């Protein structure tokens, strides 16, 4: 009985498939993919008629957004039915280091902006210069990423475009809203605005309403720049004891609470005032779950940089475009094989 049934099924399958070959008109139900082999590291499947890297990622990696691992492993973005497809089960870390060197991501650091061509001091970049710099980034194929992308890059979780750059603006001057924000919107560039909480609402500082509006645009991420903008390093008469730790804790914890309650989001990024840090400050930030912290040491950041002591390039009012171009170098060349 079983033998007869098997023969019957075989014959039917043969007939159906042969008919399909002859006419190419017969449409059968799309078959599912089938597993050919499986190890702890990968699975080999035979693609079904409807399978794409996304459907396979959803089935085997539980997340269709992980499809890039499948396209990469097979050097293909589409599959023909029946094709054998390799699906890596462990996502490889993206450290962006190769035999000729490694990628670095520059982080630009601005402070104030002056209307038109005005630049009253080195820290105040004129509106026209800022516009020129942003236009240059756009025209030269740079992708401006935010600090969350940067954190994923530093964790090896996400590869960034070859020409990736981060924009940050320190202190929370009102000119960030009046001058920089419209330009950033024009180019669709995200930026992080680091504010120190004691400054908010005073004089020419940003107001909460302005910060909320910028946050709501989806482009601006407001993060912490301490409470009072005092150095986080040991001060000349200070010793590395409980009083110092208390001071640093206050400088980190107070703005964390104020900013998160006013802006309704967790604060995850920190900029050290004057770029000064210490192991104590880094350790407190780590304990409090901060993702990144930035200094003002010049240079780009490789994927293996310590996320709590990232380099930044300050942009000055007297910088020429050629200076700016040096700040946004994206690669360190080095023979590594």
């Amino acid at each position, binding site marked *: 009985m079983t033998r007869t049934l*098997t023969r019957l*099924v075989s014959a039917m*399958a*043969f007939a*159906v*498939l042969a008919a*399909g*070959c002859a006419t190419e008109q*017969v449409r*059968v139900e799309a*078959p599912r993919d089938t*597993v050919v*082999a*499986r*190890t702890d590291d*990968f699975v080999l499947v*035979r693609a079904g008629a409807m399978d794409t890297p996304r459907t396979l990622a959803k089935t085997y990696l539980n997340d269709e957004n992980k499809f890039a691992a499948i396209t990469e492993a097979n*050097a293909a973005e589409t599959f023909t*039915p*029946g*094709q*054998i497809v*390799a699906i890596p089960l462990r996502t*490889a*870390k*993206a450290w962006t*280091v190769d*035999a000729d060197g490694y990628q670095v991501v520059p982080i630009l650091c601005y402070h104030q902006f002056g209307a038109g061509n005005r630049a009253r001091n*080195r*820290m105040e970049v004129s509106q026209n210069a800022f516009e020129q710099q942003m236009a240059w980034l756009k025209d030269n194929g740079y992708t401006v990423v935010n600090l969350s992308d940067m954190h994923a890059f530093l964790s090896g979780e996400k590869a960034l475009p070859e020409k990736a750059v981060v924009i940050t603006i320190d*202190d929370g*001057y*009102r000119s960030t809203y009046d001058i920089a924000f419209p330009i950033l919107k024009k180019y669709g560039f995200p930026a992080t605005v680091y504010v120190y*909480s004691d400054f908010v*609402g*005073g*004089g*020419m*500082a940003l107001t909460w309403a302005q910060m909320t509006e910028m946050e709501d645009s989806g482009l601006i991420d407001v993060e912490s720049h301490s*409470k009072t*903008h005092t150095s986080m390093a040991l001060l000349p008469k200070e010793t590395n004891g409980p009083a110092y730790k208390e001071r640093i804790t206050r400088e980190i914890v*107070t703005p964390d609470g*104020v900013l998160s309650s006013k802006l309704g989001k967790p604060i995850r990024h920190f900029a050290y005032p*004057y*770029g*000064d*840090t*210490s192991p104590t400050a880094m350790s407190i930030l780590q304990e409090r779950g901060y993702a990144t912290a930035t200094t*003002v*040491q010049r240079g780009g950041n*490789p994927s*293996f*940089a*310590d996320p*709590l002591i990232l*380099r930044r390039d*300050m942009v*000055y009012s007297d910088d020429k475009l050629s200076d700016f171009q040096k700040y946004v170098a994206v690669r360190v060349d080095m023979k*590594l*094989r």
Partner: protein
Amino acid sequence: MKQRLLPAILTGLLLAGCNTSNSNWEPVSVPPGNDTALAAFVTGKKQLAKDLELKGRLVEARREWRYVSAADPKDEESRTHIADLTEIIDARKAEYLKEGDAALAKGQTRQAQAAFLKLLVLDPSDEDAVTRLRKIDRTLALGNQGKKDKEALSDYRATVAREQDTSEEFEAQVNVPMKKGDYRKVIDVSDQFLKRNPGSKSATGYRKSAYISLIDESRAKGRYREALTYLDTVSEMAGDDEKPALEEKARAVRLELAGQLYSQGLAVMNSNLSKAVEQLAEAVSLDPDNWRYKQSYNQAHKMQENLGRIGGSKPKN
């Protein structure tokens, strides 16, 4: 077994000669020779693995050989390559790690970094390399704290100091009125300075102190509403750690204002009943737990209602 394989073999054969149709099939587990898709996969992966070996990308080459081996477990070539590559990779990794650690021990961070980078190029999944590279990066960054762009930072400090800390001219302008108790003048001078130097902590501090002094002055003079207005201004400037004390102060001023309104309400009860009701109502709203205020307000309110009913007119003012 034969019976189960039969449909699959038939399907495989048909698929081999039928590339374009949306044909149906069963799961297969047949040697690559009889399965063109599997054979194509194996051939392609073998070629890729050999190319990667030639380029020195050994870990990636080994991965491709592993695909081959899984697709065709009987393939000897893949097994040999996997074994050979594993031996080479492990030896090189150990060598780079040793070289890097030795350099690190001598304080030669750049050499150590190069060795660990080579290790990471060889095996992008090597966590030891990443951990060591990160440690080096942290050490270099912390060590370079004093070697930052000195000119820039000096400018930065000067700018911040100029804008946020102090100015001799400002100090001179603000000290005298502060000592004389001319707090409005202090606020005026500070506001002017803050317009030019938005981040000035010194000016913000003087401004805040002046407002706090005005609060005390207004309280002393019984001008509680004014004191509350100043308190609102100070609260906007205050940090979170100062807020509880300010809220406490505001509560005290509200109670003082309530007491004042109560007294004023009682004083005008006979001469201006509607004014008395208004003042007592506000006293109750400021100090809802005070039973005397409530009692007096209720009495006054009742009187007002009774007068309205009797005379049909409002009480005489």
